[in-house]
């Protein structure tokens, strides 16, 4: 295979000129469009682990947009403890380890228009095992967060904000 050739006219064809269009094409294909993402059924999952407490009034700056709703949960302080998630295929899970031995597994199930159906499972570390605590299936607006709260011993709460798109 020759990568440098000379045309009949005597002009030398450089390999970069041959390869460049191919590289550009592959690069375009490598960047998925919105339609391609839809077709491949992959989801971006996001999860926030928040400790809610009444022992202070501190609020993580990132949580300010949610504060009006969070305050209605009966707590005064909200600290963002963990961010999780990632890109997963439909039916595949994204697991995030939170505080106090809790772990949450999010599994996108389907996407219809602007709605996403997903399974949210909670586990608690007991000894050497992750023991299932709850299993919910919800449908939410795509990219908008859904809240679940686990009461913790001592009165604090573990707020889990989950979304997918």
């Amino acid at each position, binding site marked *: 295979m020759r990568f*440098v050739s000379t045309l009949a006219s005597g002009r030398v064809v450089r390999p970069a000129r041959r390869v460049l269009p191919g590289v550009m094409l592959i690069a375009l294909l490598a960047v998925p469009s919105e339609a391609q993402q839809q077709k491949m059924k992959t989801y971006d999952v996001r999860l926030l682990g928040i400790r809610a407490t009444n022992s202070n009034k501190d609020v993580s700056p990132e949580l300010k947009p949610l504060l009006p709703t969070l305050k209605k949960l009966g707590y005064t302080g909200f600290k963002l403890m963990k961010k999780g998630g990632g890109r997963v295929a439909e039916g595949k899970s994204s697991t995030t380890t939170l505080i106090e031995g809790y772990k949450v597994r999010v599994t996108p199930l389907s996407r219809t228009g602007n709605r996403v159906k997903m399974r949210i499972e909670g586990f608690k570390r007991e000894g050497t095992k992750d023991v299932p605590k709850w299993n919910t299936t919800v449908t939410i607006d795509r990219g908008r967060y859904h809240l679940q709260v686990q*009461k913790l011993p001592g009165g604090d709460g573990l707020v889990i904000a989950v979304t997918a798109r």
Partner: protein
Amino acid sequence: MSESCRQFEQLLALAATGDFDALTPQQVAALEAHLNACSPCAARLARSAPAADVRLTPAVELPSEGNWEHVWEAIDAARQTRVRQAWPASGAVQRLWRPLLAAAACILMVVMWRSAPMSETQTWELKLSDNVVVHEIETFGDLTSLVVYPAEDDGATVVWFLENEGA
């Protein structure tokens, strides 16, 4: 011809034949001064001096342009053959490095796209879903669930998990 011209006659004869090695530096300087002052002698020397191209006729025939081209082509071909024979792998790498580099860049892009974690800069708007449909809730052990639906346009649906009081 003046007396001074006669004195330079022998020197002029030597200069006319181009035999300057037979003249001393003083004689050359004196001849030069005389020729600057005496235009008849200068004219005579100019007439008698042989044409330069006649004296510089090459003794052998020089190679033609075609001959030179042929020689250079032979040298190039011999050098390329020697490099290929000595370093065959190196030659292949030199020829393939651009396509290999391009392919590696493409593979890297695909891998990065596939495995890239969510970057902090890709922040999503932190908004709650207005419309949450709870299809199924299952709890294990001594846990109880409670779904709190919002009042009209106020708050969001929240699923609570509580330990049983008696547990």
